């Protein structure tokens, strides 16, 4: 009882009202995020429709191997996140801390792979303006400018996704520390629930990014 009284902010009637408000707030925030990425999906779709050959050709050069590994890593992190939410509600503190730490670590692993992939992209001459071989594309009878458009969308979309993931890693990391100190309880589980919603949203975005960016046209090799 005492704990629930300090949890309740002064302007709510009871904890249920407070929880419902927080949950609604997070869902609405995620709705705005859908629109943020929606702009990029729309722009990408427009140009893929206008320049299908260049988009297919450029997509073949992305590293599907790392992209695939990263998909598995991120989906696993969603599993550990769900378990963390369960552990918080069930009051199993050690499992909760372990799952939060695992989630943050898997997110970090994704970022490490992503950084490695960007580096490989650089050596594969896939960075317009920095390292980009126009002749190679001309030889394939593809307009390099259209390839650059695809690559711009690739970097903006995966970059924005990585930014969201980094924020998520920070959030989960802080919650892991708080969980270790015993901040959460079966009465005070909302922060972990909300972080979980955000984490899953970032995963879902990746589920869309993978086929859109890596799986255009018919692949002949993984990398």
């Amino acid at each position: 009882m005492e704990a629930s009284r300090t949890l309740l902010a002064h302007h709510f009637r009871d904890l249920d009202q407070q929880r419902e408000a927080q949950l609604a707030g997070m869902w609405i925030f995620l709705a705005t995020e859908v629109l943020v990425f929606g702009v990029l999906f729309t722009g990408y779709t427009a140009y893929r429709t206008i320049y299908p050959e260049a988009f297919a050709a450029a997509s073949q050069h992305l590293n599907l191997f790392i992209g695939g590994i990263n998909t598995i890593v991120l989906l696993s992190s969603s599993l550990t996140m769900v378990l963390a939410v369960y552990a918080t509600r069930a009051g199993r503190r050690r499992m909760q801390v372990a799952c939060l730490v695992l989630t943050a670590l898997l997110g970090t692993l994704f970022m490490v792979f992503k950084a490695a992939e960007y580096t490989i992209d650089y050596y594969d001459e896939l960075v317009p303006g920095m390292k980009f071989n126009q002749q190679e594309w001309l030889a394939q009878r593809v307009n390099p400018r259209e390839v650059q458009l695809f690559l711009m969308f690739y970097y903006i979309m995966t970059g924005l996704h990585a930014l969201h993931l980094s924020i998520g890693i920070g959030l989960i990391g802080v919650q892991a520390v708080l969980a270790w100190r015993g901040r959460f309880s079966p009465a005070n589980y909302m922060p972990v629930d909300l972080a979980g919603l955000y984490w899953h949203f970032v995963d879902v975005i990746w589920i869309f990014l993978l086929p859109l960016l890596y799986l255009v046209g018919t692949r002949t090799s993984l990398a």
Partner: protein
Amino acid sequence: MSTLVSPAPAPAPQPAAAPKNYLNVAYGLKSWLLTTDHKRIAILYLVTISLMFILGGLAASLIRMELITPDGNLVEAQTYNQLFSAHGIIMVWFFLIPSIPTVMGNFVIPMMIGARDLAFPRLNLASWYIFVLGAAVVLWTILRGGVDTGWTFYPPYSTSSSYTNVIPVAAGILISGFSSILTGLNFVVTVHRMRAPGMTWFRLPLFIWSLYATSIILILATPVLAMVLLLVAVERITGFGIFDPALNGDPLLFQHLFWFYSHPAVYIMVLPAMGVVSEVFPCFARKNIFGYRFVAFASVAIAVFGFLVWGHHMFVAGQSAYAAMTFSVLSYLVAVPSAIKVFNWTATLYKGSIAFDAPMLYAIGFIAMFTMGGLTGLFLACLGLDIHVHDTYFVIAHFHFIMVGGMVMGYMSALHFWWPKMTGRKYPEGWGRLAALTIFFGFLMTFLPQFLLGYEGMPRRYYHYPPEFQVLNVMSSAGATILGAGYVLPLLYLLWSLKYGKPAGPNPWGATGLEWQTRSPPPTDNFEVTPTVTTEPYNYSQEEVPRGG
């Protein structure tokens, strides 16, 4: 009792030790800058956007001064371009969009629904700081020359040709966009989750319905603007053609995305003003609103249709004829809910006991201006006619009728209506009416000639023009002077009333609505006891509520 002179409200007797209210509960800068009280945050916004309104107005005065003569002799062409860009950017993003939601919405939404605060008070304060940061970035850039792209940032000019500070201004607008999103999010959650016992959806005041619809637009449209500005910045920095056709980009894509935000943004500006009129009309006509549910659902319908009409800004931009026809028909559809509202407000007046106090004068002004602005909007939704008047002063006059004539009138109405609640004091009624009439006629004189100018072919955004347009331009500039004087008046007498105004008492207008049942100014928690709602709003017909009570 229809009368031009309402009896002066009797000063409410103050007890010897008046209980604390939100204004005198704490003093000092820190108690304001770290407040999470929605009423104090509303005051912070009021000060901020008033300052922005003055700055945007100064840019407009310079524009009107330049246009008195056909030759460009006051400012250079480049300066003129920077002036109208600054005017548009400041007025749209830093006055019109935040105005009623952040000031009036912040102040009255929790009180209207019987809550102690918005759902997320700290987020509310954060959104003010974000807004100030965005405004500071934009003002700082404007002092260093600003941009010359207009408020629309059309590429390829904005991405490849303009030598002005496009990126900092876009960054400032993007930052302020986050403030809009957080405010909208806060309002939606508050309306869903914070209503007092008995406050069902159909007992909500119509102001809440309008701001709910507005918030939905803020949440769903603003992220699109943020991303499209980001893409413009990326193209400017990297030089890769996301939008520039010379680099295989598609400038139409920019226009689609930009207007997907900016057309609904028009409804962000006008819907709150419609909410204000729906509050003011029943109160000053002593009548229940005519067709409550129609007015409520019309707000939602406008918000929904508003998302489907953006292509009418692009009739001459090269979209397909079928797209243009579809957008044209959908644009006509917006007239239906708008007309429902206008007819219902008018029907509310029928056999009412009308008092022409300043809030009512402004509200009537809103309907007059909104009707004219709306009907000329139909001209522009017409495919053939739009080709003739596209990018002329006809368009300028049309959207100023909606935004300044409609929206600013609604804002002034709200400011006068809730001023006694916010400050605990009455403004001087005679001065209030004078200002309302000055603004009304000043506005008509400024913008009616612009319809004619546009129809005769004067394009927008030019600093000099053929001499035959001079008479109408001088009329417009003279009207702008009257309009400016009309805006200075409230600034003076409202400030005066803070110290010398008569004490208002809890309910000077005899209005229904929970916000009038608490003290003026309200205590920090709004209500001593959480109210329980048992009746519909606006039940003025049921019993005579005395005025000046």
